């Protein structure tokens, strides 16, 4: 599942432009802040490449954590052993 944080998104729509699978569409109405949010209407086409997540300048996009590009099959992180040490 793709989740977009409405508090952080500023509506630059770079994710809509760069997605190869055409997952996102632009909302018809603006939200409280006056931002036209991108909406993942075509979510079945998502390839889990993580490009939109990396590219988002406002860190607003989260892709499903179980199918994530940096997660292994046994729920371990793929590279950094220090990753889990930092408490957010």
């Amino acid at each position, binding site marked *: 599942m793709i989740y977009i944080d409405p508090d952080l998104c500023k509506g630059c729509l770079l994710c809509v432009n760069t997605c190869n699978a055409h997952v996102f569409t632009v909302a*018809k109405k603006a939200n409280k802040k006056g931002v036209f949010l991108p909406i993942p209407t075509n979510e079945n086409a998502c390839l889990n490449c993580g490009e939109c997540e990396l590219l*988002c300048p406002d860190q607003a996009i989260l892709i499903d954590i179980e199918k994530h590009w940096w997660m292994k099959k046994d729920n371990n992180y793929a590279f950094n052993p*220090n990753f889990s040490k930092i408490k957010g």
Partner: protein
Amino acid sequence: MVDEIDEYTIDDDFEKPKRAKAPFIKYLREDRLPHIFCPGCGNGTIINTFFKGMEEANIDFENVAMVSGIGCSSRIPGYIKCDSLHTTHGRALSFATGLKVSNPDLDVVVFTGDGDCASIGGNHLIHAARRNINLTVICINNNIYGMTGGQISPTSPKGSYGSTAPYGNRDKPFHLAELVAAAGATYVARWTTVQVESAAKSIEKGLKNKGFSFIEIVSQCPTYFGRKNKMKTPVKMMDHIKNSTIYINNTKLMSEHELADKIVVGEFVDKSAPEFTDNLQELSKENYGDKTLRRSAFLKNFDENKE
């Protein structure tokens, strides 16, 4: 399809998943977010690429120190949970040199913009590259002075418009990656904000490399560069950057006239050379028998210790 869209927009208390945060937000100061950068600015993307490169290089986040000068891009360390120095205009590299020499175990990362790094700090950049200090410099090149109102910078391309060039810029731009490569840096690369994965890989290599590593990332500035040059939206700027990039291997047979408006992308230098702090430590070992000169100045019998 249209009905679904309306449902999403009306729903303001949308059910959040368990961890409704982007993966790299744990490195950022959440109380400071959303950050000050304009919508569509490339600086936010470069924060993500840096963290991806850092994780792939297996570097401890608590060992990282960040140094920055003045400018839009130099506000990045203010949003990151690590030790940082916000220094005077153009002197970020000299402060970083001091930090690295006093504690060579730190991983010092410098975030600079094109105005900070190429114009006022140009001399510091060349000489840091010449001495080959073990720093990682990430230069965010947006072709204009974005913070002060859209003046022409040393890297803005020929024919572009700015608030100090209403009839178009007539000067030749600096090519920063080629300049630093000629000055003697050991790892030099240039990417754009479109090729995020390659940029992350370059940052990983730069962090692992022992020596001066310089990564120039060409980014978009829709607010000032875009508005003056008929590319008002970030999407349009992104397309312009995407259409004008060429990989370095394809440029060998091209003339200078053909490459005038293009952004050459790729790895320029990847070699090894003697490093500055190692040279200093060898010198102090030869003369004082100790790794660093730091302690010896506080000894009472300074001259007797010379053997």
